[in-house]
Structure formats: C-alpha cells, structure tokens
C-alpha cells in the first residue's frame, strides 16, 4: 500500500538525507534552515538512519566551515551531507571544487535562493546554484515536493556510483516551503537503491593510517592540466548512470523520470525549456494549450550538470522549430543566461557537427530565444507561459526577454494576459486566508492541509506569503484541494478563490482581498461587529464586489468566542472551524471530528486542558458563526485609502506606498533605484496602528527621568525641551511641564509625547517608569490606555511635537539619561518584534551620534528591521544629516565597516594635506582652527561643521583642481562615527575571524554586538553565544558547552574599548559605555544583552529578564577602557555587584532553559551546576582582573600572566571565598 504524507519540500529532502547519511554539517540560512532543523531534531530524538545508527549532526560557524567539515568527513569515508542556499552555497564553493576534484560522493540539498546584489532577498531563484556550475558538482533539479523526495534518493544513489558529488536543488520557498501531499518512499526502496558495495568503496577510499595515502597534493605546470583532465570519463559516464538510477527508481516506485522530461505534443513546433518549480506551471499551461490544439511542448531539465546534449536532443521533438529557454537567474553582461547558452550550444554543436557526418536532427537550425523569469520568487503563471508561446509565434521573437515584470528601461519584458487561466482548477477548491503573523492563521491552515491530505483521497497544496515585518505582519495563506494532481506553483490569483477569509478586520481597509474571490465565493470575516452591522464596516469597493460576484458572507466574533471559552486571544482553531463549517470542502461533521482529532494529536495528554478549551471553542464557534444578509446595494462610504499621506515625497508615494499596499509587482523597472539606494525615514510614513493600548503621560507625577524614551524599542515615546513661549499655539490636549532640575534655563518646558500610530503597545515604558502616585500605587507617571479613543487627539499632538524645535545639542548634558534622551532619535518605528531587546541600543546610538554616523550592518534581525522594504527606520534630522547605512553580508561585516573607516581616514588625511597646501589661498586662521579642532564634544563637532561650510564657500572661489578636490573631500575634516552593528551569530560565529582582525587593527570603529544568544532572524538556532543548558534549534538537548566570553577575548587586545551592557539593568552604565566607546580613538566593542522572543519569555518582561541576568551573574556589567591605562589605572571597571541571586532564579524564568527540566532533567541540573560555577568563577576572575595593579612599568600581558598563574583564584573559589574583597561599583 502506498503511504502518503503531507509535508513541505524541506522536510522531504531532510527525510531522505537523514536516512542515508552518517554525518550532517549544518549552518542556518533561509530558506534551507528547516532541513538542518529537522535533521538535528531527529538525531536529538534518537532517530536512526538506514543502517541503524543516529547521524551525527554538527553545526558549524559558517557555511564555509560546514563545507570544510564535510570535506573532512567525506575524506574519512563517512556518508556526509549538508543543506544550504544563497550566500551559504557561495561560501561552500572553494570546498566544492576540492570535493568534486577528489571524486567524492555526496549530495548537497539546496533550497535555491537569490544572491544579495543590489539588495538581499531570501526568496527563490537559481542565482546561487548557477554560481557553482564550474565546481564539478552534478546538478539535479526538483520541481515539486514529491520530486524533492525522489531526487534526493536518486542523487544519493547516483553519486555513490558515479563518484561525482551532487547539488540537488529546488526552488527556495516555492518548493522548500510548499506543503503538498506526496507518496513516501519506504526503507526497502531506499535500501534497494543504495549499493552497499559502493558505500563500502567510499569508506575504503577514506583516509586511514591502516592504508595511508596522500591526497590533495600541490601540482605544477607539468602535470596539473593532465590531472585535471583525468576526471573526464567520470563525467562522460554520469548521464547514463543517472538515467539508469532513475530507471531503477521507476521499477521500484512506478515514478519514471528522464534526464530531460518532455511533456506536450509529440509533434510540437514550439517548445519551452526550463527547470525548477516554474516547470510545474508550464506543465499545466502546456497541457491546456495542447488541448486547445496548439502544437506546443515543454522540456523539463532534470540533470543540468553534466549537461547531456545527446539526451537533450533526443528528448526534443524532431518537429521543433522554435525554442524558448527560461532561466531563473541573471548574468549581467552575458549574452544570455546559462541554460539558454547550454541549449543553444548543444543544438548548434549537433547541427554543425552532424552536417558533416549524418543527417542533423533538425532540418533547419531552430530559433532559440532566452528569457529570465521568476527572480526572487517573482510570480510565474500560466498566462506568462502563454505569452512566451505567443512570442514564439512571432516572426522574430524577442531574445533575452524578461517575463513577469514591466521593464520600461531596457524594454526586455514581454506582456502577458493576467486574466489567462487554464482549466486545471475547474475542479480544484482554492482558498485564501488573510491573517496576522501571530494569530496562528498559518499554523491552522497547515493543520487543515494535513487534515484534508491525510484523511481524504484529495490532493492538497499550501503556500504561505509573509510580509517583511516581524511585529504585526500580514500572512496570506494560499490553499488548494482537489482530486486531480496539482501542478500550480503559483499563487491563487484574482477571481480564483472560492473561499476568502479575513482573520483580522483591520485588513479590510488595507487589502482589496475580494479581488481574489471567484463568483459565488464564500467570504468569512472575523469581526467584533454584530452580524446585522458588519456589512457597514466593509469598504464600498468590497460591498460592490460582494454584490457583483454574488458572494456569500459569514461573520464570527472570533475574539469573543476565544475569550468566552478560555482561549484568550487564540483564534486559530475557531477560524479553522469556520472554514470547515462553511467551505463545504468536507462534510461538516467529519471535518469537526477531524479538527478535534488534530487538536488531540497536537496537545494529547499533556495539554488536556488546552484540548478541552479547544473543543469548547470549536463547539461554540458553530453557534456563533452567522451568515450575513447582503443588502441590495452598496451603502458604505469607506474607501481604501493610500497607505501614506498625500504630502509624502514622490518616491514614497510612487514606490514605497505601492509596496506597502501589496502592489509592488506592478512597479516598473524605471521606478526602481538601479544601484539599490533608497531614501531614509520612510517607516514614519507607514502608520500601522498596532497598539491596542498606548502610554499616557501624567505630567504632574513625572520626575522627568528620561527612562521611558530610553527603553522604547520603536522610538515611539520621546521627550523634547522647548521654551514655554514656543508652546503658545499648542493643541489643548498637548501636555508639557516646566523643567525640573538645574541643568536647564528656568523658562524651559519638557514634553513626553507618544506617536500613537507607531507605538506597538509593548508597555515597556510603563514598566520602567519608577514613579507611582502616592495615594494610588497602581497609577504611574505613565499608564497604558486604549488607543482608539486617543488616536486622533494624540496624532495631532504628535504632529505638533514633531514640528517643535530641537534643543541645542551642544547645551545638553549627554552623560545623564534625562539629557541624552532629549536628542532626536534617527532610528524610529522599525518592524522589529514588539518589545525587541535590540532596537533600544541602536536608537540610543543614533541619538548620541546619528548625525555623524555610518553604519555597517551585518545580515540578521537588525538588517531586516533596518533595511527590508518597503520602509526603513533609519532617518535623518531637519538639517538632512543622519546615519548612512549599508548591509554588505553576514560574514564580512567587521571588514566592511573597517573599509568604511579606512576610506574616511584616507579622505580626511588627504583633505588635511590639501588644506595645508592651499593654506596660503585660504583664511589661514580658519585653516589652523580646522586642523587643530577639538571635536570631543557636541559643541566642538558643531563648530567644526560650521568651519567646513565656511571653508567650502572659500574653496568654490578658487579656480584650482586641488581646491575642487578639497571641496569634495572637505566633509571628511569633520568627525565621522563608524558603527559596525550585528548580532551574535555574526560576531561570535560567522564573522568572528573578521571581527578579531578589526579589533586587532587599532582603527577607530565602534562595534555593537546585539547579543540575543541565538540566531534570532533565522528562527532560534544555537550560536556560540548561546549559554550552557539553553535549548535552541541545533541543541535541542540543551547546549552542552559554555557561552563564549567574547569580551574577555576582546580585552586581550590592549587598545580595545570593551563594554558589557544591559540597558534594562543599569541604563546609565549603557549610556556611559556608548559615550566612552565612541570617544575612544581605536576599536571599541559593546556587547549588549538583548532579550528576544527566542528566549521563551514574554517581552513585556524584557527589563526583568535583564535584571535577573545581571543579578545572577549571567551578564556582568563592566567597561574596559584602555584610556585609563595611560594614567596607570586598571582599565577594567566592574559596574555590577557580585551575583546576588542563584543562577537558578534566572534560568527558571526563561523557557529556553526551563524546558530542559522537562525533557532531560538530569542534564538540566548538571548544566545548571556547571553554569553556576562558571558565573561565580567569571565574576571573581573579572574582579581580580579589575583589582590588579596596573602601571606602565609592568606590561599588561605580564600582569595577566601573573594572574593566570596565581593559584589563589581557584583555591579560594573552591572555598567559596575570595581574598580580594575590593569590589568596584
């Protein structure tokens, strides 16, 4: 009996890979990470491979490291694999040459993804795999999840036989994340496919002292070339080996594949050639067009390398006259993309060659055109396939075309009919669901697919589209069900969905979701409005569509049902029940039983109460789901408005707003910046209104401490100081209060104002507020209050606040929280998670140094909430100054930032040289002042900027090339603050080599490590910053090793400023660290504790967690300032006291640690004991370092060496005492 599973492409690949390998070296990268996660979790739970042993899964520091480890494991005779994508694959290239060069069998599974060029993209195309064509790896393309599973095995079998390593690739997201129903391969089939003799031969080739050899020699001009040619027979033999393997697979499973699979009319004249998921869509279109009588065909490329021209030609109908070759990649400057050129070459070679010998396959050389499609998961639809065939009909079809975009610059694009449909979905049920990221819509839909896939004969497909935000993201689920196999690898489009669900009423005014509804579709709306009033909440366009398309509408107040049944705010089961109740996809009773079974399966015995609550919610849902009576005409006055204000700049209105509205696909090429440059400050245009409640300031209670703006992750609460006289025209509800304290003139007033539509409602400002009403302890100087009634009033107040003048920076005492918080933040309203622990540090840096800052940002959370379109939180001040930002890569950020520093320094030096040269032609006093400027404080920096302006005014009057050059370089005479920002994955792992080099360089850069102790952006994988005993992906049994002490390593360089900070535990220490780090004329590194949702804590407890981390000794606070050495002082200054609570008190509050007591209690206890010893030891070690006598006569290294050899440290710790009681605080 055939067994089916409903899984996605990643899981399909990982299943075969885990079953057929012994060593798996991994590193997280989207969209390939889930393959590594599956493999890791299976090994962690004891799942064995085909030979009964549990594969060893090892996470490396980078893909380059993974490739090295794989090379080593392969050379030791182990069956070894990995999973990666995009830049990760590029990092493996050097080793791939080695692995292939040594004829080593392995399969790399690749969720193919775009390469970062003008911008990073996590989505799918073939740019990455195409960059590896020359490595000598075979390349096998899967087009759908079923093929992913099948080809994973075929590749594994073929590599063992051919000794040529394989790149098995499939389209990132479209295939890696598409959930589909597929037929499983049983273990016997796998066993039958893998020849034990070949495995043994691989083992025997492994390096061993029992039969030693030398491999990896260095060769010279005399023999290298010959040796390189020696592998040819292996590549010549390979296509036949792969075909034989495919044939053997067909015998075992009934699924027959060819190196090139032809589909369509055997007499076709026009053929499209492509590989990957696009071939599935083309397959659907060709089937349809053929039935319409068109002589068309499709050639699916399976084995792309080695490229068998013979097999290609054999597969093409002899009648072929015109061919369009589609590449999902771009090779700028090339005369066509790779697959196109391969096809042209193959046909041309045969044509030329055969003319001399036998009859060529084609009477005349076919017309061959090449085109690009689908870059970064751009939609590729049957309408586009039709357009390509239509193009082929033309006398001179366009070569080097693009399809799917509007290229009004190079005019490469061909038009397509967006309304074209095949008949493939006439019997398919198509449904779309609009949900909020955190509301469980996606998980509920995955569940529905499984229910239908596993309890019926129906085929099922699910694909999920996410937006770029982390907080308040919209998710659109596309589900298809039907009795026929589903080839569509494209989204459900306008007019196609029989079912449209809106899980959040706020989306009604944002997305025209009923565009997607088919005639007589069912529309389900979650709304708090009564069923008789819900009609009035719909925008007019939507009402019209309901009338025009005869749409049946249902409404439910899912949040009420959830609340009443004890489900809190979890509406996923409720909405899922509604879907089954009204879609008619399954008989209602069967569906309800199936949902209940699924709930039971998910929570089982361990979540009995949750099961009961879900059951209650399911039953209650049916009682609360109502059909809405549709009136005869449109009554609504609500219009879907532009997502940005009319006053926004052209670019924001024409590009940014369109992307926000979900119409980015329609933006023509000419509107896009060709070098990836975008304006700042765009997040401010995107009013997301996420907060249910916002803080309200009680000015009478407030002591103006400035803590609230300091902790705000979204810069949504700010303070400003203005003269009372400036406030005459303030709106009535605008609050302000006379300044307290003596640092400001008497007539000054302060205002703390909230941006009501940008606040995410995290409540951290209220949490940190230290002031309570003396007669009502629950009332603070800030209190949360419902947003809707305040929205308009506070919007006006916010606008008023923004236009108030900024306080003179040079007159502010930067060393106080109150003072520094008056500085304008130049990082605002990011899409980071609600309560994010990273963003307050970035915002603080922009407040202090934003007007002179250049940022090198490592890939990760901070590059995503910092630079993911449509908008950016990085912004500029009224003078137009602000942080200039760029994200190079993940692995090279430190070097990238160093390059920026080196260039700035070089330009400064050059400018100073020119200034000296031109001195006689300029105001010499001015020149002297510029050359000798003191820029150590805000006043000095401002004065220098003024001087530079004066200088430039003089320079333009001098007609001299040197003066012109100096004018260009003059800005470098002013101070620039270079910031290198990234997470722990970058700083501790993939970028550590570069970071180390930059620390050693002595150059003036400021490194900010946002330490979440885990790879947050890719979903919580272990990094070397992960603490001992923490459970994370890739260490599901708890991380068995201690967190790397990056600060200690950095302190080993005597010229590096090092700070360990946690703003929620000691804000003033954080502030000082930032000021000192920036002031230090050399490398500085701030390692900043950043609570993250990956810790398994509610981020409303962000500050508490920071305090616990510090008090328990997990996160000691200190500053290591080399400036102090000059005065003969010890550079290390401890800012937190000895651990005052047991480490247990900290770890028990975070799920990442506490869950281990439920899975591996003994390990958990052991790790805790070790960790407790480590934090105690660390504190004492640091205290001793801080207490050392440090003067110029003793070298630092010698001083440390003295400490290292002092027996006292360990002896005294063992006694639980310390000889050195001197603690600095």
């Amino acid at each position, binding site marked *: 009996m055939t067994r089916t599973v409903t899984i996605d492409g990643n899981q399909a690949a990982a299943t075969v890979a885990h079953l057929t390998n012994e060593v798996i070296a991994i590193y997280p990268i989207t969209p390939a990470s889930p393959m590594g996660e599956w493999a890791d979790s299976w090994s962690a739970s004891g799942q064995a491979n085909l030979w009964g042993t549990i594969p060893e899964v090892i996470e490396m520091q980078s893909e380059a490291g993974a490739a090295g480890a794989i090379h080593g494991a392969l050379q030791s005779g182990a069956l070894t694999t990995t999973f990666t994508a995009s830049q990760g694959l590029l990092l493996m290239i050097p080793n791939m040459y080695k692995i292939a060069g040594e004829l080593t069998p392995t399969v790399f599974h690749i969720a193919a993804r775009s390469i970062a060029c003008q911008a990073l993209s996590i989505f799918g195309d073939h740019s990455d795999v195409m960059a590896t064509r020359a490595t000598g790896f075979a390349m096998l393309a899967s087009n759908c999840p079923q093929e992913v599973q099948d080809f994973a095995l075929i590749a594994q079998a073929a590599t063992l036989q051919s000794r040529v390593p394989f790149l098995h690739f499939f389209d990132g997201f479209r295939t890696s994340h598409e959930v589909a129903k597929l037929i499983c391969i049983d273990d016997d089939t796998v066993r039958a496919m893998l020849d034990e003799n070949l495995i043994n031969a691989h083992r025997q080739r492994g390096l061993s002292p029992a039969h030693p050899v030398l491999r990896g020699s260095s060769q010279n001009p005399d023999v290298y070339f010959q040796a390189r040619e020696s592998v040819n027979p292996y590549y010549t033999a390979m296509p036949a080996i792969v075909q034989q393997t495919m044939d053997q697979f067909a015998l075992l499973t009934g699924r027959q594949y060819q190196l090139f699979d032809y589909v369509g009319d055997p007499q076709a004249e026009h053929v499209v050639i492509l590989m990957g998921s696009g071939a599935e869509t083309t397959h659907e279109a060709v089937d349809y067009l053929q039935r319409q009588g068109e002589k068309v065909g499709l050639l699916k490329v399976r084995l792309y390398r080695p490229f068998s021209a013979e097999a290609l030609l054999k597969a093409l109908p002899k009648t072929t006259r015109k061919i369009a070759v589609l590449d999902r990649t771009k090779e700028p400057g090339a005369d066509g993309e790779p697959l196109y050129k391969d096809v042209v070459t193959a046909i041309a070679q045969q044509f030329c060659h055969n003319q001399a010998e036998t009859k060529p396959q084609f009477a005349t050389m076919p017309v061959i055109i090449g085109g690009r499609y689908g870059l970064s998961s751009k939609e590729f639809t049957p309408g586009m396939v039709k357009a390509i065939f239509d193009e082929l009909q033309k006398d001179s079809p366009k070569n080097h075309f693009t399809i799917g975009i509007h290229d009004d610059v190079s005019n490469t694009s061909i038009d397509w009919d967006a309304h074209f449909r095949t008949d493939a979905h006439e019997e398919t049920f198509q449904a779309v669901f609009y949900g909020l990221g955190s509301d469980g819509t996606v998980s509920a839909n995955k569940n529905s697919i499984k229910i239908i896939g596993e309890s019926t004969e129906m085929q099922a497909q699910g694909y999920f589209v996410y937006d770029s935000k*982390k907080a308040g993201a919209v998710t659109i689920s596309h589900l298809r069900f039907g009795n026929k196999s589903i080839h569509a690898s494209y989204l459900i489009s306008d007019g196609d969905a029989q079912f449209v669900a809106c899980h959040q009423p706020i989306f009604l005014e944002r997305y025209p979701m009923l565009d997607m509804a088919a005639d007589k579709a069912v529309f389900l709306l979650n709304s708090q409005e009564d069923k008789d009033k819900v009609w009035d909440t719909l925008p007019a366009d939507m009402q019209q569509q309901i009338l025009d398309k005869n749409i049946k509408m249902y409404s439910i107040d899912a949040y009420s049902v959830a609340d009443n049944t004890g489900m809190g705010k979890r509406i996923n089961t409720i909405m899922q029940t509604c879907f089954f109740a009204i879609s008619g996809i399954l008989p209602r009773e069967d569906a309800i039983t199936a949902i209940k079974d699924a709930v039971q399966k998910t929570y089982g015995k361990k979540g009995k109460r949750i099961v009961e609550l879900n059951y209650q919610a399911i039953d209650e849902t049916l009682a609360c789901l109502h059909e809405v009576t549709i009136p005869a005409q449109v009554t609504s006055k609500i219009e879907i408005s532009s997502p940005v204000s009319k006053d926004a700049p052209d670019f924001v209105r024409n590009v940014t707003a369109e992307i926000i509205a979900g119409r980015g696909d329609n933006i023509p090429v000419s509107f896009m910046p060709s070098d990836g440059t975008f304006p700042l400050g765009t997040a401010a245009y995107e009013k997301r209104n996420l907060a249910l409640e916002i803080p309200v300031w009680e000015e009478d209670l407030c002591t103006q401490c400035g803590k609230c703006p300091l902790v705000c992750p979204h810069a949504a609460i700010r303070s400003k100081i203005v003269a009372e006289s400036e406030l005459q025209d303030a709106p009535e509800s605008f609050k302000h209060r006379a300044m307290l304290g003596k640092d400001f003139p008497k007539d000054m007033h302060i205002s703390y104002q909230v941006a009501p539509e940008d606040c995410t409602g995290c409540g951290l400002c209220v949490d940190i507020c230290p002031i309570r009403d003396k007669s009502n302890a629950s009332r603070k100087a800030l209190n949360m209050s419902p947003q809707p009634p305040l929205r308009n009033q506070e919007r006006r107040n916010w606008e008023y606040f923004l236009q108030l003048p900024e306080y003179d920076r040079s007159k502010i005492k930067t060393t106080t929280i109150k003072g520094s918080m008056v500085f304008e933040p130049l990082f605002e309203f990011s899409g980071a998670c609600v309560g994010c622990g990273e963003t307050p540090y970035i915002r603080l840096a922009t407040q202090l140094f934003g007007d002179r800052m250049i940022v090198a940002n490592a890939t990760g959370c901070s590059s995503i909430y910092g630079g993911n379109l449509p908008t950016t939180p990085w912004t500029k001040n009224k003078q137009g100054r602000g942080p200039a930002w760029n994200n190079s890569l993940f692995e090279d950020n430190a070097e990238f930032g160093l390059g920026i520093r080196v260039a700035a320094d070089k330009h400064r030096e050059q400018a100073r040289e020119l200034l000296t040269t031109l001195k006689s032609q300029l105001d010499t006093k001015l020149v002297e002042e510029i050359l000798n400027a003191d820029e150590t404080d805000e006043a000095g920096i401002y004065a220098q900027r003024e001087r530079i302006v004066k200088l430039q005014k003089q320079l333009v009057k001098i007609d001299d090339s040197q003066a012109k050059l100096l004018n260009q370089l003059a800005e470098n005479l002013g101070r620039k603050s270079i910031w290198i920002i990234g997470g722990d994955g970058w700083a501790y792992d993939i970028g550590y080599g570069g970071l180390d080099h930059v620390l050693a360089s002595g150059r003036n850069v400021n490194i900010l490590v946002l330490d979440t102790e885990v790879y947050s952006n*890719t979903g919580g994988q272990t990094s070397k910053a992960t603490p001992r005993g923490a459970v994370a992906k890739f260490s599901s049994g708890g991380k068995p090793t201690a967190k790397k002490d990056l600060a200690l390593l950095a302190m080993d360089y005597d010229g590096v400023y090092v700070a360990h900070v946690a703003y929620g535990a000691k804000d003033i220490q954080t502030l000082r660290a930032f000021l000192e780090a920036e002031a230090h004329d050399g490398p500085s590194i701030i390692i900043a504790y950043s609570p993250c949702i990956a810790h398994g804590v509610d981020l409303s407890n962000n500050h508490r967690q920071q305090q616990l981390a510090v008090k328990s000794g997990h996160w000691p606070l200190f500053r290591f300032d080399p400036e102090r050495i000059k005065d003969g002082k010890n550079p290390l200054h401890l800012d937190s006291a000895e651990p005052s609570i047991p480490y247990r008190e900290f770890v028990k509050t975070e799920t990442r640690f506490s869950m281990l007591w439920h899975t591996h209690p003994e390990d958990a206890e052991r790790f805790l004991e070790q960790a407790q010893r480590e934090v105690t030891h660390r504190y004492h070690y640091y205290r001793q370092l801080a207490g050392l006598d440090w003067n110029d006569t003793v070298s630092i290294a010698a001083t440390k060496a003295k400490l290292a050899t002092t027996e006292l440290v360990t002896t005294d710790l063992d006694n639980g005492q310390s000889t050195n009681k001197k603690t600095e605080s």
Partner: protein
Amino acid sequence: MVDLSTEYLGLKLKNPIVPSSSPLSKDVNSAIALEDAGASAIIMHSLFEEKINYENEHFERFFHQQSIGHGEAEGFHPVPEDYQSYQEKHLEQLSKLKSQLDIPVIASLNGTTPGGWIEYGSALEAAGADALELNVYYLAADPLEDSQQVETRYIELLQSLHSHVNVPITMKLSPHFSALIPFTQQLQKNGAKGIALFNRFYQPDINLDTLQIESKLELSSSQESLLRIRWTAILFDYLDCSLAVTGGMHNHEDVLKALLAGADVTHMCSALLHNGPSQIETVLQNLKQWLEEHEYESVEQLKGSSSRQHAIDPAAYERSNYINVLDSYTSPDGVLR
C-alpha cells in the same frame, strides 16, 4: 512500653507523626530519610491544578503558538516530543515513593475546577495513593458569593470526588469559616474521612521598595499551633472522622497538645525543613518519654482527653479570654506599673 500507634483515615499508623505536604517528598531519598526517622505516613507535596494549567498554557504559548508570521522564522524553539509534564512527573514521583517506602503515602491535591479535582484525584489514586488530602484553598473574595455558596462549593467538590475514588479523602481546610462545626459535619456526612486543620498558604506581601505585591511563605512557629489545637478540641466532640493538626507542630509538646485536643495525627513541615528528618526521631523520643513519665499507656488513651468536652475548663476554648490574657501580661523590665 507505650503504644504510639494511631488510626488515621482508616489507616493503621505506627505513630501520630505524619510529615505534611512539603518539598521533602520531592526527593525519594529525603522521603526515605523521613521514614527512617520514624514517620508513620507521608503526605506528598501537592499537585496543583493551577500549575498544570499554567504549564499547558506555557506550552501552548511558547511551542505551539510561537510563530510570528515571518518568512525566515516559523518558530524559535524546537518542540520537544519527549516532554515530561508536571503532572506526569508528579505521578511518577508518587509511584516511586510508593515503591520505595513501606509507610502509607497520602497524596495531596489542590484543584481549581470540578473536573480538575476528579480527574487529578483519580489519577493520584491510580498512581497508588493510599489516601487523598484535598488541599482546598479558596478565597471568598467575590461580593456576589455568600458564605453558604462558599461552603457548598466544598461540599459539592467532595461529593463528586468521593463518587469517583475509592481511597479515603481528607479535607485540609482554612480557618476562615464562620461555623466550622456544622460545616465539617456536612463534610463528614458527604464522605470526608478526615479533616486537617488548617492549611497555610502563600500570603501576599507588599514590597516596600517597589510597592509590588509579592507572595511569600514563611516557615511556621509553634505559636501557630494554638489556633489549630483549639479547633481540634472543639471539633473532636462533634465529628467521628479523623482529625489532623497541621501548622506549628515543631516539638513533642506541640504534638502532645494536639493529641490531647483530639488529633489522630500531627503533620510536621517547618520543623523538618529547619532541623532535618531527625527531628521526627527527637519528637518521638520525647513524646514517648513524656507519655511514660506521665504514665500513659497509649496515644489512643491520650487522644481527645483535653477536648472541649473533656477539658478542665471547657469554656476556656470558647471564651476570648481577654481578661486572662491581659492578666498574664508581664511588663518589661524597668517599666514601672
């Protein structure tokens, strides 16, 4: 030789010292130490329905609902398949105690819902509990609920659980009842085989630094036993079921007083946490010595001999005794009267 044996909830016990629900039962070795020191039975630490629910919700929140709807991260934690829940751990511990100890193990349960009491009560019975102590703590802080309704909650809960389990049930009560005699009589009528007086719970405390309310549990003192002894003496005459005193049992004198008032057993906790299991040995030795010195034959003989009915001055249990108390006040040294 004085006979220390007693009967509690129908269980024959070798003496009246039964360690109460405490962390000492969380570890098998410390439970064995209690047995070795002479404990005649052990009450396991409570199974809290609230904790089960909290864990459920936690699991739901951090594992099943962790998606933030971002393309790169569908979740942040590996969902553990081999997760051992709080309830499973508790039941496993109960089974372990049963297999390692010769003395009876009484399970303690703190439920919050009718369904929860029955489900978890049955689970504890199935795991081998010799009896069930219902650690009912319900604060009547709802202005719409009168005292009768509060009492009815207890009775209905007992009734339903009684109909589902076969092991004896004892009710651990708080002192906050206006008419304990009829109420406990009702409990007895509805199946309670014992009454334990009184439970001690975490008390909210105001942190003077932060003004936050924090829950605290301080260890008891002998002083606290007096309220319990008084009510034992009063209830003894009206109930046929077992009586236990819990709270403030620190030394043999506390134990003797409780027995004199009518307790069948006394539960010790704070004293054991302070002094270790050997405290039981000390108390038993002193108890025996006192009984011998005072020529008692058995604990049975002593039990209830100073109940209200048998007391030298029965009214003393009832009166507020302000006058006497004031009389007994001695002014500090150096204060002139």
